[in-house]
């Protein structure tokens, strides 16, 4: 891992029983870099993302995030590390249906000791940036797909992460909404300098990234 690397994975493998889903993969992402991981469905992209984001432990290999080896960390240490350094955006938004837009954004802050007003202020500010300032009290069920994903992006940003992991963030959106979401991600990367690792199976979307990593059958092709 070089000094500018925010994330590096070395010789990563993941086996489920006899099935090896990720095979000896090594990759590194620089701070502020926008990397797209592309490949067909089932090629191991999401598993690789889970490994390098600390959501899952590899069967073999090491992961360093912001200079810290996370492969040997306990589950709770990983959770705390994710809370302080990482943001996630999922294809199906994964918003909590009972919480309003601002509460969903503030979800990572709930276990942190801070006033409710401070949480709300931070969440509202981010929702404003996502042009959802008028929807802060709405429940996810009252939001469109694009709005839900923008809430999810705001949630990924609320802890000022060094890197955002996005797993097919436009997969559940129509093409124009998808483009808008990509626009936000690009803007974030350019203006805020947040590193992004995005998994997608659409080559078209991947073109906007700084770098493209292709995967096939659990291995990196290029």
């Amino acid at each position, binding site marked *: 891992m070089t000094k500018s690397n925010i994330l590096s994975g070395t010789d990563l493998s993941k086996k489920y029983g006899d099935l090896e889903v990720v095979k000896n993969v090594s990759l590194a992402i620089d701070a502020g870099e926008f990397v797209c991981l592309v490949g067909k469905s089932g090629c191991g992209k999401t*598993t690789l993302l889970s490994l390098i984001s600390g959501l899952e432990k590899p069967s073999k290999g090491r992961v360093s995030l912001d200079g810290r080896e996370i492969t040997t960390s306990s589950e709770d240490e990983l959770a705390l590390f994710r*809370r*302080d350094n990482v943001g996630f955006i*999922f*294809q199906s938004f*994964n918003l909590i249906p009972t919480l309003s837009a601002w509460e969903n954004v503030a*979800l990572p802050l*709930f276990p942190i000791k801070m006033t409710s007003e401070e949480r709300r202020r931070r969440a509202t500010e981010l929702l404003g940036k996502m042009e959802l300032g008028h929807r802060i009290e709405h429940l996810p069920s009252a939001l469109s797909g694009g709005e839900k994903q923008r809430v999810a992006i705001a949630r990924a940003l609320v802890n000022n992460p060094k890197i955002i992991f996005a797993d097919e963030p436009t997969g559940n959106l129509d093409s124009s909404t998808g483009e808008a979401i990509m626009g936000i991600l690009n803007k974030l990367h350019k203006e805020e300098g947040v590193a992004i690792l995005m998994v997608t199976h659409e080559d078209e979307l991947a073109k906007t990234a700084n770098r493209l990593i292709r995967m096939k059958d659990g291995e990196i092709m290029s």
Partner: protein
Amino acid sequence: MNLRYMMKELYYQKRRTLMSILGLSIGIALLIVLNSLSLAYRQAAHVPLKEIGADITVQRSGDVPKELAGPVFPCSAVTIRKEEVEKIQKLSGVRGMGTGLLLWVFDPNRAWIVLGIEKENSIGPSLLRSSVTEGRFLEDGKPEALVEQAYARQFGIRLNDTISVADKRFPVVGFVDASRAAKIAVANVYLPLKDAEDMAASSKELQSVSPYAPGDVNLLFIKADQEKITGLASEMKGILGNKATVATPDSFLKLLGSLFALSDKFTLAASLIAIIVAVLIAFKTMAGNIAERAREIGVLKAVGWTNRNVVSQLMSESVIQCFMAGILGLLIALMASFGLSFMKVNIPIPWEMSPTPHFLPGGGDQIFKTLQLPVHVPWSLAFFAILLSIIIGGMTGGLLGRHISKIKPSEVLRHD
């Protein structure tokens, strides 16, 4: 634990939350009502003895003379010797004692049930002082009589009349209504103990079957330490032999015959069953709710919630649900107890404790003490029920939370 999140989750799953609260509250209510009823029966069983200022009454059964003439002892209350009384008085746990001498007096033209009573004692029939309806209570050193009001009415006895009992004359100085008080050792005429003793001592018929000397009695009323009553009862039987009849609140409880009265074990078992069923209902509903939230838990963990954060959140939801169930259960129980407190209970008084010759009118009738069942929810029980519901909530939430918190976010968040 986030309060806002917790309340929103409970509100979002309104139906499930209500089901869970209702299920557990019924169990809690049953627990409270069953125990309150059991307690009420226990308290009711104390009433007949309490009304005579005692916790234990002691008699000894024996024979009646072949010929019923003059003063005799009823077969259920023959001589208890002075030495035996002293032994009983010295038993550890005995806090006080009252005595009485119950006689059947068969005069040529009338039969009397006579009770010789002490004039000053807060234990035993001297409590009749508060049941005088007309005239006054007996005074020291005077051979006077109190007559039971109903008996006086039946036989036309008036205040200041003189009645002749066993050839001795007594002015009637007052009427008493013993029917409103204790149903134990009820007589037609109440005389000073000394006069009753003289009657018993001079009765050949009585002496022929149950030797008697002044100072002996045939009724003992004992005030005792509550926790020692059972032990004292068996010690007294040891002193007086196998013909002793020792009545305690427990013996009245057995006479009540109710399931609640019969056994603490029944109440305990029924309460446990109620609680177990309620806990299972609550557990099943909460387990269903938590299982449905696996994806949500995965999100929480992905965004940085530790296992402990997840468990404490789920536990707080469960605790608040169960706490509400506890409060609702308590309210239901209070209403049920209020309703049940209008219930009347008839406590049978054994014939032996208030013997009337069978050949006299009403002599064979069963006597009952009727009272409203004193059902109420003690604070300690209410507190215990609420505490129990909180513990159930904590354990349920803790167990389910620990189980679900082990979920790996990557397993549930893989895109559909």
